[in-house]
């Protein structure tokens, strides 16, 4: 038997170009690392403060600000649920418009633009804008999360609608159904499990977002947390973070269960 050699073809065929790319990437990485200005003495100071925070976790203080924590948590949960419901309600029609197999071209482009707009900004930036517009408080958080939900849910739902079986849609169209009946009988049964899964998943994300947007003034438990850190009450902050972790874990567990069940 003749021994033959074989190697997988390289990604870049030209060896000189290939090594030039490797060398260039390495040189850039070294230069970039060199350009970082790290203040080591400040870092050491911060390390000590960080350690106090970690130490606070070992003895979190739930009692001292319990009333404020409960208020913040209630505000966050209210914000999460109302914003999720509003976001989902707005997402469904936008998703129908953003599905190429359902909507005429102008509607498609308009709905895709809304989605692109919503997806192009991080929640914090949107929250800052809404706080500037409607003032501090949970209403800004509600608007932020509603807006962010549209970008997520409408995009993924529209993609699922575009993946539906065209034969089933054709069959309903052939019966003389109206557009609304066609969506109700042809599209909805095909996308329902995915829609429910996405909604539950988004509810879960929205709770985490509600804690984050509070830090820029949009109310909720995030605002309470921010206040606690500003006052150097790390034991209170630790208590808040532990509660957030517990709620996120419970909702994560519940939502994964629910999603498995609807498949």
């Amino acid at each position, binding site marked *: 038997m003749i021994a033959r050699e074989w190697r997988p073809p390289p990604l870049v065929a030209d060896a000189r170009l290939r090594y030039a790319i490797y060398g260039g990437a390495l040189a850039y990485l070294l230069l970039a690392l060199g350009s970082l200005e790290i203040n080591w003495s400040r870092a050491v100071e911060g390390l000590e403060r960080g350690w106090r925070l970690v130490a606070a976790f070992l003895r979190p203080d739930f009692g001292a600000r319990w009333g404020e924590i409960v208020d913040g948590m209630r505000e966050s949960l209210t914000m999460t649920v109302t914003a999720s419901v509003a976001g989902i309600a707005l997402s469904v029609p936008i998703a129908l418009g953003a599905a190429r197999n359902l909507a005429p071209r102008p509607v498609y482009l308009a709905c895709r633009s809304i989605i692109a707009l919503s997806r192009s900004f991080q929640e914090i930036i949107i929250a800052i804008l809404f706080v500037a517009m409607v003032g501090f408080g949970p209403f800004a958080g509600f608007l932020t999360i509603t807006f962010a939900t549209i970008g997520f849910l409408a995009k993924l739902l529209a993609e699922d609608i575009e993946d539906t*079986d065209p*034969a*089933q849609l*054709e*069959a*309903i*169209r*052939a*019966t*003389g*159904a*109206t557009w*609304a*009946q*066609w969506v*109700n*009988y*042809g599209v909805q*049964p*095909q996308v*329902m*499990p995915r829609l429910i899964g996405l909604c539950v998943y988004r509810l879960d994300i929205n709770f985490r977002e509600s804690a984050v947007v509070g830090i820029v003034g949009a109310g909720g438990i995030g605002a309470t947390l921010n206040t606690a850190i500003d006052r150097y009450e790390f034991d209170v902050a630790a208590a808040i973070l532990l509660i957030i972790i517990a709620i996120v874990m419970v909702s994560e567990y519940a939502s994964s269960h629910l999603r498995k069940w609807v498949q």
Partner: protein
Amino acid sequence: MIAGPPRGGPVRFLADPMLRTIELTKRYATGDLALDRVSLEVPRGQVLALIGPSGAGKSTLIRCVNRLVEPTSGRVLLGDTDLTALTRAELRMARRRIGMIFQEYALIERLTVMENVLSGRLGYVGFWASWFRRFPAADLARAFETLERVGLVEFVDKRADALSGGQRQRVGIARALLQNPELLLVDEPTASLDPKTSRQIMRLLVELCGERGLAAVINIHDVVLAQEFAQRVVGLRGGRIVFDGPPGALNAAALTAIYGDEDWSRTAAEEAAARPPRGAVLPDRDRMGALGQ
């Protein structure tokens, strides 16, 4: 009894055809000419098999009838209605008169058998009635009666994806019948079925057409099934009608005209002529011999 000889011949018009296409042409956006001036008349109550190689335009032809595919030019007449001249709302009304049956059944997989069957009534009921599945009592009675006729009445609340291929196609047939149609368009009803189920489905279709006086245009790949169950066979090739006649006239020369050169001696011709009249019972294996050339 049959009009519409191959193109170029004299055209005799029927007094009152169920369906008539006049110079029907479809050119897709890609430039492919799927239908080339097809003129065809289907009398009331006639079961017509449309045969031809893949890509001959069979699917396009039946979809141009109910305008699931928009024809490029030409006209389609359903009774006295010019389907090609209708507005969207009028077209919806006209589609109710045309039942359609599909190759892969095209049932809504996650809906129940009953919901699938009742979806045949969508053109007749309002949105909220259909949303809440509150169909008129007469529709329900009709649905139960039709499911009984196709032998699926005990499956009403089963989901469509829990059924076998033959059962699904029966649901598809029941859905089409619920429209109370005058014409059935049937697209490869047996392509996904085994030979025995294929024959049962074809027999059911032809019986139902007979019972209700329905005309049907059936796209079918299986020449032997077409010959056995249809009253008339039309051959399509390259978007044109190249054969139109009774099943008995489908000889080797006709098959070559439709499909191209091949040894057709086992498939049709003399064998078809020698076959006993339709409805006579023949052991299945005789037909199977003809199937596997």
